[in-house]
């Protein structure tokens, strides 16, 4: 597979609503719940927090990559997806007679954030949602995104999980725009090789420690390595068969 360029970065986490603030290491206490300008008025009420944070991170990454949102290929990777909406549906089922809600049911689907974002962006190309265990989510997301980008599109990947109703998980969304060729007025930030098995040569992000309960936190290891202009292999997690890495070069 050919190399893929990283041309845009985006992020939303409690205290951090952009990459520059994340890089500064100084959180903003006012950044508590995600809100994206992509969803004005009634759309804001329909879009879930996961859609909001994914949209916020993707919008920033696409802006940096100079990719018009309508031309982006969208990929969401999430372990839990829309668990809040799912649990809301499960609660409604306990009513007598058992009930449901059209909006909550539609929002309970893993891919529903992309439905909201696709409409907001006017994006009519490829879009998809994937999931995997927490330990391999980021590796599988990057594999899916880089192999898709190799076909020539601008893939906007967001790895995100909202708070979980059943276990501790701080909200986090990390976005990358991946392309074989950068747009004319965009600056390539780094080059990625093929995701595969191996041992990382670069250290994990020390700033991500407070967010490690979120499976997307491994994406911060890649984001920080890109920001630092490092070369080597970034650890992406792994399973019983070994770790996954992605080669990175400035």
């Amino acid at each position, binding site marked *: *597979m050919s190399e893929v360029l990283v041309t845009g970065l985006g992020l939303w986490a409690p205290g951090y609503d952009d990459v520059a603030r994340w890089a500064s290491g100084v959180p903003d206490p006012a950044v508590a719940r995600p809100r994206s300008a992509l969803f004005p008025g009634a759309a804001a009420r*329909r879009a879930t927090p996961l859609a909001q944070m994914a949209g916020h991170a993707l919008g920033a990454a696409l802006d940096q990559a100079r990719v018009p949102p*309508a031309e982006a290929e*969208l990929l969401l990777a999430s*372990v*839990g*997806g829309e668990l809040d909406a*799912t649990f809301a*549906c*499960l*609660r*409604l*089922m*306990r009513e007598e007679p*058992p009930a*449901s*809600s*059209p909006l909550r*049911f*539609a*929002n*309970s*689907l*893993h*891919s*529903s954030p*992309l*439905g*909201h974002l*696709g*409409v907001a962006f*006017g*994006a*009519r*190309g*490829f*879009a*998809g*949602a*994937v*999931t*995997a*265990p927490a330990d*391999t989510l980021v*590796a*599988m997301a990057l*594999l*899916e995104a*880089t*192999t898709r980008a*190799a*076909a020539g599109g601008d893939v906007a990947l967001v790895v995100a999980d909202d708070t979980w109703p*059943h*276990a501790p998980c701080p909200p986090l969304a990390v976005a990358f725009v991946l392309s074989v060729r950068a747009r004319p007025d965009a600056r390539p930030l780094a080059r990625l090789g*093929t*995701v*595969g*098995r191996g041992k990382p040569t670069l250290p994990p992000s020390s700033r991500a420690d407070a967010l490690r309960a979120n499976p997307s936190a491994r994406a911060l290891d890649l984001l920080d390595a890109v920001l630092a202009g490092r070369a080597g292999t970034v650890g992406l997690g792994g399973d019983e*068969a*070994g770790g996954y890495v992605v080669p990175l070069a400035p």
Partner: protein
Amino acid sequence: MTVRRYPITAYAAACALGMRTADVIASLREGRSGLVRQGAEHGLPFETWFGALPEPVAARDLGPWTARQADVALHVLDEIEGPVCAAVDRWGAHRVGVVLGTTTGGVSETEARFGAFVATGAFPPDYDFARAHLQYGAAEVTARRHGITGPRLAQVSACSSSAKAFATARRWLDAGVVDAVLVGGVDTRCRMTLLGFHALEVLSSEPCTPFAEGRRGINLGEAGAWVLVEREGEARAWLRGVGETSDAHHLTQPRPDGAGVRDAMALALADGEVDAAEVGLVNPHATGTLYNDAAEGKALMELLPHRPPVVPTKGLTGHTLGACGALETVMCVVALEQGWVPAAHTGPLDPALDLNLPRARAELRPRFALNTSAAFAGHNAAVLLEAP
């Protein structure tokens, strides 16, 4: 220039038409519907028809992964154990991947334990929510069953999930990261989904009639299907192309002009370097809703004016959600391999649609078949298959 195509070397399916692939094929050949009426006795405050698996699936002790969805995935996988083991031996466990499409995961397991969660704020200690409920579970148990250590993930793009799984498989093979991929789809009955579709007012209280005049909505169903795609091997059929698009229109309704699904089909044809006029069979998404079928019908009329046979099968199986792309791809593979096209099991054609819905099984030998899927969030996918 060499055409980029990958052999499908094995397949298996279970759905309302049968617990084994041979039973599914026999029912499909005879046009025997597997839909059954469900209502209050099944915990539903309404009546509908459902494509239930006709026999119980053996419950396995899968430890923390124990879930009916995983049971169905493994039940179907057992049927192609030989070819899967051969692929693992041939290519190496690390060169085989697993991509599974699903929507519900193990939500039915959580339904049964949600009372405890509400009462105590936690699930029972013997319930591993992450492994039993979340959508990657069946892909993981499938890989573990055969010691597969290559990449594995679940496609969770609602009802186009397992059609999109073929796209992932093709990308992985193109990129050289694997030499074989188990591509599948599985979704099993859960009340949450039935109640949700009822709330959306798209569930029919009668057997569904895709593309028919006066159609009244969908019936849901459950199914599992696996397809083994390899870099080289004896082809039962070929995976020739895949196309994926988005509607950018509405969370739950398709674009009325059908452009999303039309473009997905066109991209699959371009990916496979096949002219639209060569398509000899279509298994459409065709759920039986007013809007889906109108939009998809327009797309088919625009892209395929030569009117190839269009055979909706959800009137036999119900809409199997995340499994339908894989299940209906298996049906296309059977048609291409065996040289017959099933009858369309539905009512009188909607007069607004100029489609060729065969009313009887036909001994035809199409060279290319398209399977289309559409989904909430506006995600469309089309899989292009070639006869062996």
